């Protein structure tokens, strides 16, 4: 009697658990698909909402500098230019700073100190963008206006990059803020790829009589170069899309100037400033089109970054 019930109960329990498994699997799959749906929706909205502007201006949108909401004539060049210039300035400053600090943390500092400092540096990455903007407006901008920009004009003023007004706000200040904001990303990814370099590489170089620096610069850094390059692209993608801090210090002037001291504008900044008030059909569409351009730019740069970082981890796991 007892054995009969046990035998009868067995298949029932099994099917119910199998059904449970199926439901659980489908639920998880459903939520994984939400991610695809969100990105699909994002791309669809960006393309569809920018349609009026794309139809009216075509590719000329990217090369025109006119931005006139009254006549509804829009061109994106000043913003694209500002986005690229500020990001390039940021990278010129943050690559040496970030790679230098990563070398110190990976090659010189004792493990405990290195971990503590890395934690502090990663806190820097957690600070909200608007706080960087707040600090920059009230501390960095006056400093730039009173001391740094007049100094640059006096010493390097013969170069086209350091002429014009010294208003404190502009490409250079925005680039400086972006440099500070991207350094933590460069440091933490570069440090990890430097730490992944096998010990034998260092020992071999040192045994051949290389100094500590020569070992680091000629052996360790080249070995980790893909990871470091990945960290740079990661930082670049951040810089391109950064909104609030740039909006607060770039000066918000629709113009293209070779000099870094001039105020300018960036894609993210113009969307932040004008989107809420943009009326009519063409105006918001032009802003969404700028968003589409920025979206494409960051996707490509992020793609490069991932490819390089994945390549280094694969290299590591093979060993």
């Amino acid at each position, binding site marked *: 009697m007892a054995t009969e019930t046990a035998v009868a109960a067995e298949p029932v329990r099994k099917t119910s658990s199998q059904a449970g498994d199926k439901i659980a699997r489908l639920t998880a799959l459903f939520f994984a698909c939400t991610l695809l749906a969100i990105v699909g929706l994002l791309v669809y909205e960006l393309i569809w909402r920018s349609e009026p502007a794309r139809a009216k201006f075509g590719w000329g949108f990217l090369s025109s500098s006119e931005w006139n909401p009254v006549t509804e004539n829009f061109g994106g060049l000043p913003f694209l230019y500002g986005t690229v210039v500020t990001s390039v300035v940021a990278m010129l400053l943050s690559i040496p700073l970030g790679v*230098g600090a990563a070398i110190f943390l990976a090659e010189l500092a004792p493990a405990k100190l290195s971990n503590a400092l890395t934690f502090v540096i990663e806190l820097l990455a957690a600070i*909200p963008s608007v706080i960087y903007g*707040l*600090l920059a407006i009230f501390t960095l901008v006056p400093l730039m206006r009173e001391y740094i920009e007049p100094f640059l004009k006096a010493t390097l003023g013969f170069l086209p990059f350091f002429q014009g007004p010294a208003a404190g706000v502009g490409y250079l200040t925005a680039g400086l803020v972006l440099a500070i904001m991207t350094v933590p990303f460069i440091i933490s990814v570069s440090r990890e790829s430097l730490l992944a370099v096998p010990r034998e590489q260092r020992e071999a170089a040192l045994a051949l009589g290389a100094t500590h620096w020569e070992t680091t610069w000629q052996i360790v850094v080249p070995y980790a170069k893909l990871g470091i390059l990945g960290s740079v692209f990661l930082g670049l993608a951040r810089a391109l*899309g950064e909104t609030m801090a740039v909006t607060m210090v770039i000066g918000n002037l629709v113009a293209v100037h070779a000099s870094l001291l001039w105020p300018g504008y960036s894609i*993210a900044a113009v969307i932040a400033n004008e989107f809420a008030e943009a009326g009519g059909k063409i105006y918001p569409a032009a802003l969404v089109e700028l968003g589409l351009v920025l979206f494409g730019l960051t996707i490509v740069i992020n793609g490069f970054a991932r490819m390089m970082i994945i390549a280094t981890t694969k290299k590591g796991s093979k060993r």
Partner: protein
Amino acid sequence: MLARRKLVNMVMLTMTGVCTVATVAVLFLILGALLVHGASSLSWNFFTQLPKPIGETGGGMANAIVGSAEIVGLAALIGIPIGFLAGVYLSEYEDKKFASVVRYIADLLNGVPSIIVGILGWALLVVPMHGNSALAGSIALSVMLIPIVTRQTEQFLREVPLALREGALALGACKWKMIATVVVPAGSKGIMTGMILGVARIAGESAPLLFTAGSSQYWGTLTEPTASLPVMIYFRATGPYEEWHQEAWAAGLVLIGMVLTANILARMILAKGVSVPRG
């Protein structure tokens, strides 16, 4: 020659130290400046009063503090379950090809500039509802939160040892019971850390809220424009009045206090070191 090499060695190694000190110093300069400027204008009124017109004293940002809590809370309610279950899928149920597509898409979404997420929130909710609302802000922020939680959940579930899973299966548990009662509890510390860090990150975002939640001088319901701390900092800091700037500093101090507390708390939950989500 050797002397020169030794000199180069010393100079360059010192330079790397200088780079590190400079970067770390920035954090302390930021905290110092916020403390000096913010503490002097922080008062009880800041937490309990609504904003007052220019010229009147004693105004505060109570509505923005509550508004931030409301928007971020709802975003967490939407984003955490979706992100968590997507992460469970990636770690536990992967079909090789589809999972790598989902993983790629999660990283892609993680890298989308926050202002563009704002455009999505605007298109999905502000346009059909004919106006800004806290709800639209929450949706925008949850879009930022989902990929962070997904990747963190996946990462920490993967670290759960295979032996634990095999043990559960050998005892006769079916797969979903194994996941729910063995794998997820084993990875819960890391997952919690990821969630706290993710929520702390979206709590500081202002770009996606500018034209979704908007701003307001008053208390708001879910379907009305609602002020939030980061957006108020932006408007106060870029405004023309000295009183506004003082309020911006005070709000900045409160915001950074919350974000740093959450970050340090997350580290304490996860006793061993782990990277801040990035990408």
